[in-house]
């Protein structure tokens, strides 16, 4: 079976700085893939490159192929991209207020998404489909007439989700969709996202910094740091037997269940974009770094499961 999304050698640069370097990423049909990393790791830029929504003077190179689209997405002109976005590929952003049009009733916005791509025969059908979509995200029919500012953050994010799923996209990308929400609302929105993609057999690329959320939502995970994918594999594998020292440190630092009074930390700070060290991007914060780390570590393992580290953590038990 061919992949829904296939990213090869994606590199994103702004003037002389490299923000994302040589990222390979595939998402299979119906697969839920997580992309985790701290701020500045390049995970959002990766998503924006796929969508062709990079800011001006930020340039992407490499190859992005999407199933059902017969052209390369990198470098495609706006006319072609606007036929892909919202149809084959949809995105849920972190901040729903800026993703919605404040001057339009939400029902019209959802109907518009279908009318623009001509996936429904007419206005009446589009409105009926919009009501149906609202029902799927557990919002009442009356919400059709509401403006975004009349809704709460969680309700708005559900509208954005309904909009994104309106045309049954092959791939849904979510960039920190629940970071701005309360935990109980987050639980509902996460559940709706998973049910929405499962019902359509859409693939999901889920971007977040929250390891627990990724583990709950996704099947496979990629860990990014300093603009590179440092480790990838099935969620269970990566989170129970991390190989890259960054993944190991990140897991330890986010473990609040520990009975120790002090948390395990990663020394230092995430460097600002473009100021990561050469060679292994993590070497200036890594306790295991040696001279060999000044050369870039090669990828160990298969395309979907592996890591890039000169001094990987030992595997004690192998499943």
């Amino acid at each position, binding site marked *: 079976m061919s992949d829904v999304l296939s990213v090869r050698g994606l590199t994103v640069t702004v003037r002389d700085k490299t923000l994302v370097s040589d990222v390979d990423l595939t998402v299979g049909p119906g697969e839920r893939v997580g992309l985790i990393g*701290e701020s500045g790791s390049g995970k959002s830029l990766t998503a924006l490159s796929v969508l062709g929504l990079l800011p001006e003077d930020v340039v992407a190179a490499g190859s992005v192929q999407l199933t059902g689209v017969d052209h390369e997405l990198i470098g495609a002109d706006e006319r072609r991209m606007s036929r892909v976005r919202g149809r084959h590929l949809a995105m849920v952003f972190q901040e729903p207020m800026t993703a919605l049009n404040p001057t339009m009733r939400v029902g019209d916005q959802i109907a518009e998404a279908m009318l623009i791509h001509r996936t429904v025969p007419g206005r009446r059908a589009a409105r009926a489909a919009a009501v149906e979509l609202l029902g799927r995200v557990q919002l009442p029919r009356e919400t059709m007439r509401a403006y975004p500012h009349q809704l709460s953050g969680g309700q708005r994010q559900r509208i954005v989700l309904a909009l994104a799923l309106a045309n049954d996209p092959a791939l849904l990308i979510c960039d920190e969709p629940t970071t701005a929400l309360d*935990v109980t609302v*987050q639980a509902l929105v996460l559940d709706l996202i998973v049910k929405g993609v499962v019902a359509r057999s859409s693939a999901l690329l889920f971007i977040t910094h929250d*390891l627990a959320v990724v583990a*709950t939502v996704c099947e496979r995970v990629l860990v990014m740091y300093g603009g590179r994918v440092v480790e990838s594999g099935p969620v269970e594998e990566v989170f129970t037997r991390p190989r890259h020292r960054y993944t190991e440190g*990140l897991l330890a*630092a*986010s473990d609040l*269940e520990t009975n120790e009074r002090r948390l395990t930390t990663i020394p230092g700070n995430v460097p600002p974009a473009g100021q990561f060290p050469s060679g292994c991007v993590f070497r200036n914060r890594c306790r295991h770094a040696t001279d060999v780390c000044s050369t870039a570590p090669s990828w160990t393992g298969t395309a979907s499961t592996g890591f890039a580290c000169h001094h990987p953590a030992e595997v004690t038990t192998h499943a």
Partner: protein
Amino acid sequence: MPEIREHIPAAHQPDAEPAIKLIDVVRNYTRPRTSLLRSAPAVHALRGVNLEVKQGERFGIVGESGCGKSTLLRIIAALDRASSGHVIVEGTDITHLPERRLRFLRENLQLVFQDPMSSLDPRMRVRDIIAEPLVVQGHPASGQRVRELLEAVGLSADAGDRYPHQFSGGQRQRISIARALAPRPRILVADEPVSALDVSVRAQVLNLISDLVDELNLTLVFVSHDLSVVKHVCDRVAVMNAGQIVETGYTGDVYAAPQHPYTQRLVSAIPTLHRALSGATTTDLLATKGEPA
């Protein structure tokens, strides 16, 4: 950091008076009028909050946005006044004290806010930011004291010459903590101090707060929407919902066996690695059973 350990706190006697005590605190706001004919609508931000924080305790306040936790904090810090009820800090009823008699509170109780960018003056050098609470209260602000504080929060001494924008989020939060500690407070109130930070930096700042509270024998009031962070940092926790405290108890107990339906929903909605790896799905987050897996 030997120099900072100066005030010896009141012993942890069971009969020692509580650091903070709230009796039936109510705070109502009025919204702007929407109609000429009807009266202005009221918001009941706090509806009768009773609370007791003991000396030297690490006390957590947890709740979702809009539950009134920030209003509660502002009232404890006398930045806002209660509509009715009493607020007693270290034995003094501050409910109706005028600002000029609140000097003891301004020295003994200090705040750390969520967003270190908006709570640090971008036009001041770090050393002036840290010395400001001392200057305002008429103490001599020596360079020595500022260096001590910078060292205590893990920043180099030359950090004092720089401006807030030259630091990362975690470092800025260290500066906020240093500023809060400058007047040698006995109570440290932290409002979502790690919510804006990356995971690897969050662990550093939580450790720092924890160490300083131990070393300086502070009473910590830690407000967060994140029950798992509070569980790690605090001994006791109060869960707030809709302007009321619905449950109080030792954090371990509240987390393991929540009693109130709201707390049960809150606890089960928290995604954890442990639960996810043992097969919990997003649907399990919505389950309102009390016991987390």
